[in-house]
């Protein structure tokens, strides 16, 4: 999309293809000193072959010389010699990985499986080229940011494709994950691409929160009003922040199942034996096993252990560990009949988006794991049932549900990914129309099998090599992407690749500001009227 939309841009030639391969990337000899310094890692390049146009991305830059002895020859040669040699004997090449082929008259960009010939001209991609690849903002695409050095160009994410699979937003603390996630959630909400359920660990998505630079960012509730319901585990904290909440979540002890304890095992320091005992306790006491167990005194425990053929020491340790749960204000000894979960489900069924604030419990990973796991397990069962029913009866399937979880490696680490419902969702729930948006700073802690199922990955700056490797696992051209990733700035820049984008792209994330709020206030989407007809939900989701 050009800014003026009238005059075609003059393509800026940067050089010509002089070698390379499809897997390693094309070597483009840069032809001017200006190009050498202007072309950056991540810059989009088009290469004009004889019959096809190729669209690629700069993944590396090299200084080359045709004379291996040049370094010694130029010692003390002065500025004039350097001037004469640069661009001739000494030159620069850019490695351009061809990503897409744009054949004239074809319906759209296709993955590149061929290469341009020697001496094909390479140009800096114009705004129109980028718009042709990343689409423009419409009912399915949301403007997420601009490519580096192309402030006027919009990179758009296909939300419909995005919510079809689980996705990840990764980046170290302070790299802008939350803002990116807010933009994604708001876009999904505005375009009705899916229903959101957000486990809002740090209470930053539902209601206004303050960024690290002191800038107040509006929450989803403020942007979308009644379409968003804010649930809170910590009403006192929500009141202190002046947040408007819809429902205080109270969870009964009778809602906790041994599976939930299995997930919490590492944070509560419960041993495997202890987890096994939980299943035994459930068999003995039924639904309210946890409370009954916690109410046993030290002396009663011995007889209980005897009658259950369990070790008294194990049960004693287990009771001590589990008693931590009694300290949570949102836990109720009285049966709530699962009302909180039911409320969440009802809101979701009503096509209302739910943000669950954790307030002061956000710092308590046990609370976060427990609640997120417990609620999600029930929703999983419900969605599964509804989808199967819809399939059997030939009715429209439920609106896709996107569950946002933070600190995802806690749910999805290789030890527990097999037990948590999140592991199951990441692996197979696509067919039941429930997907995850995992927000995490330690992707290396996530089970590799789960990570490989992540459709679209949005990666902000990462410092740890293991995290970088983990997040790029299975991505085509991961070696090149690693170079790109290591050059990201610490804020507002991210590398995006995967299912919802035709090719990897480094994006300067759009600002989450008044202009964004204004865009979001338009129901449907922010594109100009008449640009694309807004498909109805049944069109979108069958």
């Amino acid at each position, binding site marked *: 999309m050009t800014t003026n939309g009238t005059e075609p841009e003059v393509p800026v030639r940067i050089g010509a293809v002089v070698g390379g391969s499809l897997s390693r990337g094309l070597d483009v000899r840069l032809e001017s000193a200006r190009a050498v310094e202007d072309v950056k890692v991540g810059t989009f390049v088009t290469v004009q072959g004889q019959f096809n146009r190729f669209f690629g991305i700069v993944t590396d830059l090299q200084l080359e010389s045709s004379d291996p002895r040049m370094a010694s020859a130029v010692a003390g040669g002065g500025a004039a010699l350097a001037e004469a*040699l640069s661009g001739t*004997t000494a030159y620069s090449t850019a490695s351009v990985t061809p990503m897409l082929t744009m054949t004239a008259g074809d319906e759209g960009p296709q993955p590149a499986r061929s290469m341009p010939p020697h001496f094909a001209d390479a140009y800096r991609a114009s705004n129109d080229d980028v718009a042709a690849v990343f689409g423009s903002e419409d009912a399915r695409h949301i403007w997420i940011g601009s490519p580096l050095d192309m402030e006027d160009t919009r990179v758009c994410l296909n939300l419909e494709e995005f919510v079809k699979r689980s996705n990840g937003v990764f980046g170290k603390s302070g790299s802008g994950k939350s803002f990116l996630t807010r933009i994604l959630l708001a876009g999904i909400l505005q375009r009705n691409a899916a229903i959101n359920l957000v486990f809002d660990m740090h209470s930053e998505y539902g209601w206004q929160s303050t960024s690290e630079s002191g800038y107040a960012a509006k929450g989803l509730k403020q942007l979308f009003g009644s379409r968003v319901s804010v649930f809170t585990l910590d009403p006192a904290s929500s009141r202190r922040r002046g947040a408007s909440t819809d429902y205080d979540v109270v969870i009964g002890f009778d809602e906790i199942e041994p599976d939930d304890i299995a997930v919490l095992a590492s944070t509560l320091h419960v041993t495997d034996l202890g987890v096994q005992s939980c299943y035994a306790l459930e068999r003995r006491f039924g639904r309210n096993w946890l409370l009954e167990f916690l109410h046993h005194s030290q002396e009663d425990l011995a007889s209980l252990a005897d009658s259950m053929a369990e070790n008294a020491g194990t049960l004693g340790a287990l009771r001590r560990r589990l008693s931590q749960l009694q300290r949570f204000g949102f836990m109720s000894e009285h049966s709530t009949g699962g009302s909180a979960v039911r409320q969440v489900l009802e809101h979701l069924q009503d096509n209302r988006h739910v943000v669950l604030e954790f307030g002061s419990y956000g710092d308590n990973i046990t609370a976060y794991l427990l609640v997120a796991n417990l609620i999600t397990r029930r929703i999983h069962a419900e969605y599964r049932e509804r989808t199967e029913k819809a399939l059997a009866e030939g009715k429209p399937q439920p609106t896709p549900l996107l569950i946002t979880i933070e600190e995802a490696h806690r749910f999805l680490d290789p030890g527990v990914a097999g037990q948590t419902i999140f592991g199951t969702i990441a692996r197979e729930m696509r067919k039941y129309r429930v997907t995850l948006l995992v927000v995490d700073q330690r992707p290396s802690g996530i089970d590799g099998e789960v990570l490989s199922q992540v459709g679209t990955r949005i990666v902000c700056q990462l410092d740890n090599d293991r995290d970088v490797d983990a997040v790029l696992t299975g991505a085509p051209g991961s070696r090149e992407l690693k170079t790109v990733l290591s050059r990201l700035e610490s804020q507002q820049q991210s590398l995006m690749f995967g299912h919802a984008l035709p090719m990897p792209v480094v994006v300067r994330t759009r600002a989450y500001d008044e202009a964004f709020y204004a865009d979001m206030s338009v129901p449907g989407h922010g594109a100009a009227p008449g640009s694309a007809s807004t498909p109805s939900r049944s069109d979108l989701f069958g």
Partner: protein
Amino acid sequence: MPAARPASSPSPSTDPATADPGATTKFGEVVEASVDSVVGQCHTLYGAPPLGTLVRVGASLFAVVDGVSTAALDPGRRVIARGAGLESESDVYAENPQLERLLRTDVTLTVVGHEESGRYFQHLPPLPPRIHTFLYACSGTEVRGFMERSDWTALVLASALPTADDVLAAALREAAPHFGDPRAFLMQACRTIASQLPTDAARLAAIMRRLPLSEGS
């Protein structure tokens, strides 16, 4: 790019004394010729243009002066010393007016290009010049026209001359003042040479050391 020939096309009768300083100057004629090099004899003793001067051979051939030599006209008769008892070198010539007839100054030229129907070509002509073709030192206009591109440097670099680098540097030094921005001309030529010597940056550096490229020159 086609360049117009100078309007005042020189004729063999052009007298150097009355010639326009901007115009071509006849100084000798071809006495030996091959397609890539020419030997010329100057019409006057010591009348050779400086090393590196761009020379037009006849109407259409261009060459640069790669050597100047003066010797006895008759190779069999060696010149003898005549200055014993005389005060100065000029006295030697004054006392022996016959010297002007017994000595000759020769120039050797490396052919660097030719002209055909108004276009300059910076490669060898199809045929060498004929013997007795006149030699002209090129005018500024011709220098600018022919040396607008620097591909001719390849012919000098490729010549078998042991002094090729000096000749090339001299040719560039001679031509530079004819251009509005001499440094830009020299740099453009150096870049061309660099592209012709992709594996020999040291040689380029040696050539460039002979050029007035330092700041302010």
